[in-house]
């Protein structure tokens, strides 16, 4: 540990100016963060509301229903009613009229009907907290969620296995073997990161059409087994930090390169393999364009996001349903991220900076 890091761990004495600055910065940063995350809260709340509440201005923030009261076997809406004596009472509207209406006091229904002069349409209603969990149950069926979830998970798992295996092999090659043109190939590899996808898309798609693969999972899965620049780079950078002594000792003992990879490199490379697996899984979960073009029209094999966008096309007026669908789509990647957040942030630092 260096002198600089030692001093930074000792807390400076808290001067009022420091406390002030810390308070201001914390408030400002928290404010930005709350604004930044508010769409998630918005979506979660809307997903639990009734369509009636969403379209009603000045309705409560939390999912609620207008309060009702059961009187003589029927449910009646409750309203805030201003009384002649200046107080406001919560009364159930039992008989609607243009000039005058009849109300009942929910707290004391036996006192009978209270007749109130005025138009009931001018009155506002109290709301009761009432999350519509049923929205989720309905969307589950409408969108055929189990089928979409199965497709998404299957695509992500197979794609992740292919990516990790192929990228590990290629990265091992770049990290441990000398061959003619290695640095040129590595430069080419990195260059593909910057290549606009549109340049390769048209012939690739055409080839998949000619092969008869469009409408199957093959165009999404086969390329995963042929490595990609990002993950090769990430794994190679990690393998470069593993000392060669053990490989060399194993080689002297007559171990083949694949044996060395399995018995020597792999046990030491777990952190980066976990990182690439989780990255690839979430990336595959979140891939929209690939499934959109290759699985168009094949609803039974599409993953969640394509199903969600199709659902939006049909049900866009049912705003609560759309948000429930969003929450159902984003929940698993978000949970994975929260569970493995260190892995994510470290992976991005490696690919992002150490060029």
């Amino acid at each position: 540990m260096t002198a600089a890091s030692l001093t930074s761990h000792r807390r400076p004495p808290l001067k009022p100016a420091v406390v002030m600055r810390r308070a201001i910065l914390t408030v400002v940063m928290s404010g930005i963060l709350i604004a930044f995350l508010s769409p998630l809260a918005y979506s979660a709340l809307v997903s639990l509301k009734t369509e009636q509440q969403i379209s009603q201005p000045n309705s409560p923030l939390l999912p609620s229903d207008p309060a009702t009261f059961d009187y003589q076997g029927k449910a009646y809406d409750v309203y805030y009613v201003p009384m002649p004596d200046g107080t406001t009472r919560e009364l159930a509207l039992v008989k609607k009229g243009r000039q005058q209406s009849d109300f009942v006091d929910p707290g004391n229904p036996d006192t009978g009907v209270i007749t109130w002069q005025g138009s009931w349409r001018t009155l506002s209603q109290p709301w009761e907290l009432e999350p519509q969990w049923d929205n989720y149950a309905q969307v589950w069926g409408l969108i055929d969620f189990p089928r979409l979830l199965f497709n998404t998970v299957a695509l992500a798992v197979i794609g992740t296995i292919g990516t990790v295996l192929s990228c590990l092999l290629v990265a091992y090659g770049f990290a441990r073997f000398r061959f003619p043109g290695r640095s040129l190939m590595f430069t080419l590899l990195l260059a593909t990161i910057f290549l606009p996808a549109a340049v390769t898309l048209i012939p690739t798609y055409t080839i998949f059409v000619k092969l008869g693969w469009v409408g199957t999972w093959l165009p999404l899965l086969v390329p995963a087994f042929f490595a990609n620049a990002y993950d090769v780079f990430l794994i190679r950078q990690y393998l470069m930090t593993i000392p060669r002594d053990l490989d060399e000792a194993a080689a002297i003992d007559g171990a083949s390169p694949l044996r060395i990879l399995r018995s020597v490199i792999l046990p030491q490379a777990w952190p980066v393999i976990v990182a690439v697996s989780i990255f690839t899984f979430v990336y595959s979960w979140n891939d929209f364009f690939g499934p959109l073009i290759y699985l168009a029209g094949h609803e039974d094999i599409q993953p969640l996001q394509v199903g969600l966008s199709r659902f939006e096309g049909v049900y866009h007026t049912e705003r609560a349903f759309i948000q429930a669908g969003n929450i159902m789509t984003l929940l698993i990647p978000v949970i994975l991220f929260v569970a493995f957040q260190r892995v994510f942030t470290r992976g991005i630092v490696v690919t992002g900076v150490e060029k």
Partner: protein
Amino acid sequence: MSPWIVGFLAFTLLPMVATFAFTFLNLTLAQDEPITFVGLDNYVRLANDGRVWETLGNTFKFAAIWLPVSVIVPFAVAVGLNSRYAFGSSLMRTLFFLPYVVPFVAGVLVWNQMLGQEGWLNAALRFLGWSTPPDWLYDTTFIYPGLVLMGIWGIGAGIIVNLAGLRGIPTELYEAARIDGAGPVASLRNVTIPMMSPILFYTLILGVIEVLQYFLVPLVLKNGTGEPGGTTLFFNLNLYLTFFSYQQLSYGATMAWLLFGIALLVTLILFRLSRRWVFYAGER
């Protein structure tokens, strides 16, 4: 090694060459006519295609708003999180990153309502006294700011990259600056920004490549119609429609090469200009 060589050839290099070859032919996906060599016909058509240049204009206009935001906002948030006065910065870092993992379509559909008339942004603006806030995604003036707001949701990775860079700046530099009498603003300008310039440059280059290809958000949000008023008909969206909806293979390939050429040109210009402002500590 060999799997990657095969994969690289099959999925990257061959398609690139093929795309280039396609530009001189008359390919369509259905191919009703015999394949013929058409010389520069596709390029002539491209030069005279008003829609192509209009969509390119849209892309550049959007890039002009988005690129500064995509470089400055993650940097500013990272500086805030990295400050020695920041409190709970590792939790905040995690939470700032979170929307980055939200599936793209879900994110777009959340924002579609968030920016609507009954969404929270306009509720907040009304509360602050703007009685008729804009209909962000349906107004030709406010659509780009609306799309920028959506884009900001994905800056998590940029924040992490910036934070890593900030942590790498030697503390001695700040101490030397303080001894020389520099306040927070002066040390930001004279230490942080020069030391961070390679990372700011890196995020700028990645941002350019991304923004030139921007089209999935309007595709999902507006079903590729280009509404409102053609403003969301970006270059790559037009390319996508040309290929997938109109199935014009050769013309689409010509547009793809134009996009590639523009991306290359812009990147080269930025690299040339970077010598004036990007400072590499390792170089003499």
